[in-house]
């Protein structure tokens, strides 16, 4: 690492000093290629119990690099990101952006003009009520001359493909669109560096793919991209992957070399991309794309083996439906100028005991359908029958329906309102009028089933829990009522890989114990693991319904409706196209490995 600075080198007259400063910096910029330099960065979050988030980071990032920063929760990724645009200042050590020290208040504006950031939550970074005005917000703050503002806004919105939506209001946009607007807002400042702090965490696969395309294009144009992510498939896009662990750099190398060290990553609570995981299981050298996998397989040996049959577990024909939805139609804001039709003559059956998956791109009507299943929404036309209750009848006891059908919304941890965990979990049972001892028993059962020990957690303050614990506490709150059907909207959204696996396990256990789960998710691998029957929606209509193998054997149909198939199935499909004898309907890594005759 070059050490061009020579702090003590320039002494002299009062005139020489400022000139020397200028010269020194220009010299620095000219001599080093490092746009961002982090030296011995330490950061401690002050408070009742101080936490050392960063324990000595040394890093150099050159102009034009595409860097991915990964790490488990608490490894310091976000903290590091916020040092790059002077949102946080080091407790010890230095951060230099284009040779300006972040501690220097006079240079702060320049630093922020050089490094722009896009955050995780779409709603909390859009400031204006109209898209184009929000994109202009950044340049306005930096005093860009007024006649230059419209061309910049136009260029930025074009880069993300949102110019057509320039007059829309933020709250009517999808999460993916909001994030694209946020990126446009950052690019309108014309920064040299774009930092994305888990900017795709809240997006569905389609939204994420569009954002990745945008990043690729920006990188091509010379912007330095630094992306912080949980998704290893995104890290593969980068030229360089930095792995953080407990506030220090654990690995800093190309994606290929990093993902070769799968055991170390596992020890750090991290994944490898699905293709790489598969390659590893097959004993192949590390592969980052399916093409490489094919090539490596071919290199290894001829296409051998008779196509084996998948052991299809005979799904017994459903005896009875616990929920029946017939020709359901629903419109929001009926009679008002902004009316939208969310469901159009939907038929939906949930067989008792079968785990049901509901898939669809954003706006397909999944959430609306779910809210009909426990009477939050009443059928405007059509029928909804839950157990013996007909929800079309206004006199139906809606609360009885809600005892039978529990509903968990997205981000359920945002709904915790009691001070103590135990009280919050007890809310449901209490509302339904159970006796005190009964309530206590249910709360105990619910908390144990989500892995929050009853005695350990019942008196914890809700706001002292970690993100994963909060999610589980919210789940417990719905489980405590012991509903027969559990409807969960994106139960694993926004979670890191480890917590995601835990929640999946919880849902599987619940299913085994007799509850009927109805799950929506954007993650097809979760749906494949959990649900044996799937219904797909698009634009408020049912476009496909059947067993999971049936549905996921139709990738073209799904793609036409903005959906995808699980990663393993995708890999299997591509291998099949290359001539490998893989039976259709392969969904899981085990099956694929067996079909390739590797073991």
């Amino acid at each position, binding site marked *: 690492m070059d050490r061009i600075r020579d702090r003590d080198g320039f002494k002299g007259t009062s005139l020489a000093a400022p000139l020397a400063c200028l010269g020194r910096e220009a010299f620095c910029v000219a001599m080093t290629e490092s746009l961002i330099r982090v030296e011995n960065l330490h950061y401690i979050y002050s408070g009742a119990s101080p936490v050392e988030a960063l324990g000595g980071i040394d890093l150099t990032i050159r102009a034009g690099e595409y860097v991915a920063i990964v790490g488990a929760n608490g490894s310091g990724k976000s903290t590091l990101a916020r040092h790059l645009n002077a949102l946080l200042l080091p407790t010890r050590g230095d951060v230099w952006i284009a040779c300006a020290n972040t501690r220097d208040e006079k240079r702060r504006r320049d630093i922020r003009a050089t490094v722009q950031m896009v*955050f995780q939550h779409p709603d909390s970074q859009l400031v204006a*009520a*109209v898209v184009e005005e929000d994109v202009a917000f*950044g340049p306005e*703050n930096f005093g860009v001359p007024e006649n230059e503002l419209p061309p910049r806004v136009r260029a930025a919105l074009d880069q993300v493909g949102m110019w057509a939506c320039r007059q829309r*209001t933020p709250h009517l946009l999808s999460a993916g669109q909001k994030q694209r607007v946020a990126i446009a807002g950052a690019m309108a400042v014309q920064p040299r560096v774009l930092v994305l702090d888990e900017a795709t965490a809240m997006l569905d696969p389609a939204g994420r793919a569009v954002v990745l395309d945008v990043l690729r294009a920006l990188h091509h144009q010379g912007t330095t991209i630094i992306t912080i992510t949980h998704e290893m498939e995104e890290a593969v896009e980068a030229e360089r992957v930095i792995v953080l662990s407990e506030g220090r750099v654990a690995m800093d190398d190309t994606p290929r070399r990093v993902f070769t060290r799968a055991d170390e990553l596992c020890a750090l609570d991290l994944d490898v991309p699905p293709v790489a995981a598969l390659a590893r299981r097959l004993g192949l050298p590390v592969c980052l794309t399916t093409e490489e996998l094919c090539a490596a397989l071919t290199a290894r040996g001829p296409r051998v083996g008779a196509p084996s049959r998948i052991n299809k577990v005979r799904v017994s024909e459903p005896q009875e439906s616990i929920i029946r939805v017939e020709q359901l139609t629903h419109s929001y804001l009926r009679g008002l100028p902004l009316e939208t039709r969310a469901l159009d003559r939907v038929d939906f059956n949930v067989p008792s005991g079968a785990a049901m998956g509901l898939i669809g791109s954003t706006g397909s009507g999944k959430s609306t359908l779910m*809210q009909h299943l426990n009477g*939050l929404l009443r059928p405007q036309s059509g029928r909804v029958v839950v157990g013996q209750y007909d929800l079309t009848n206004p006199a139906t006891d809606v609360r009885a329906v809600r005892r039978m059908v529990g509903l968990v919304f997205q981000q359920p941890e*945002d709904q915790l309102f009691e001070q103590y965990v135990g009280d919050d979990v007890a*809310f449901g049972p209490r509302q339904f009028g159970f006796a005190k001892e009964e309530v206590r028993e249910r709360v105990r059962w619910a908390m144990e089933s989500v892995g929050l020990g009853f005695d350990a957690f019942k008196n914890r303050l809700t706001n002292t829990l970690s993100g994963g614990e909060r999610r589980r506490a919210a789940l417990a709150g719905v489980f405590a009522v012991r509903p027969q059907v559990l409807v969960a909207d994106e139960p694993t959204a926004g979670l890191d890989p480890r917590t995601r696996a835990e929640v999946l396990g919880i849902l599987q256990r619940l299913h085994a114990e007799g509850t009927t789960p109805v799950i929506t998710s954007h993650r097809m691998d979760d749906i494949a693991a959990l649900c044996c029957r799937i219904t797909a929606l698009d634009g408020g209509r049912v476009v496909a319904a059947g067993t999971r193998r049936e549905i996921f054997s139709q990738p073209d149909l799904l793609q036409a409706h903005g959906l995808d198939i699980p990663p393993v199935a995708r890999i299997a499909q591509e291998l099949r196209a290359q001539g490998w004898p893989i039976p259709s309907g392969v969904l899981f890594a085990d099956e694929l490995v067996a079909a390739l005759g590797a073991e």
Partner: protein
Amino acid sequence: MEDFELLRHVTIGQYFPTGSPLHRLDPRVKIIGVVALVGTLVTLQSASGVLIGLVITFALIALARVDVQFALGGLAPALQILVFLAVLQLVFGWSARVTNCHSLWSFWLLNVTTCSIQAVVVLLARFAALFLLTGLLTFTSTLSELARGIEWLLRPFQRVGVPADELAMVFTIALRFVPTLALEMEKLLKAQAARGANIQSGSNPVARTRQLLQVLVPLFINTLRRSDDLTAALEARGYTGGAGRTYYIRLHFQRADVVALLVVAALILGLFALPFGMFDQSVLNMLATK
């Protein structure tokens, strides 16, 4: 039946780009116009005057090509209270002027006088007009335009320490987040209903307060967390207050604006100058003598 669609009731803060002549006016003119009309309606004492004001307001809304029914819909929550107040005023006769009041109907303590009728009409018409006028501002101008307008109008006061741009920013953030928070509140209500809570309106005050707090607590917590994120986002995007900022929304004064100001001035003059007071008196006298 429960109604969770809060967005239906939030008519303030929604912008409708219908492209009407009102939309094209300079926001400063619109703000001044609305403020002047509001001031007029508040000081006018005569019922017929305020009614004319209400008619003018309806005309303006029609001119803006906004659906009048939708605009009035926002009044619905307040309706109960209004009607209650109106009945009180009508029957107990609390009115400003006590002169020339003929009693029309009397029973024990209840007393309906001509003055109280006048007062009730003024109350209802004024409230409706005020509500619609402020709505008109947001229907026809984007928040940034309004923020710009407010900021420009407050600028002369900066010398006395009023932070014009900062206040405009507060205003922008508030109105921008009303629909977002409405959706969030809706989600909270639904989640609690799903867990067995009874969200019917009209139950006793104690229960309603508790219900409200159950929703408000998470809303506040999430709002404070959101404020952390929003503050970081604002700072990251370079916002440090009003100094040194340029503006995307440009304000130009055009002929239409001058015309609009003149029209408003004429209306106000008319409202004050015309003898509405006498007109009222004669109508009420007619009622009294019948």
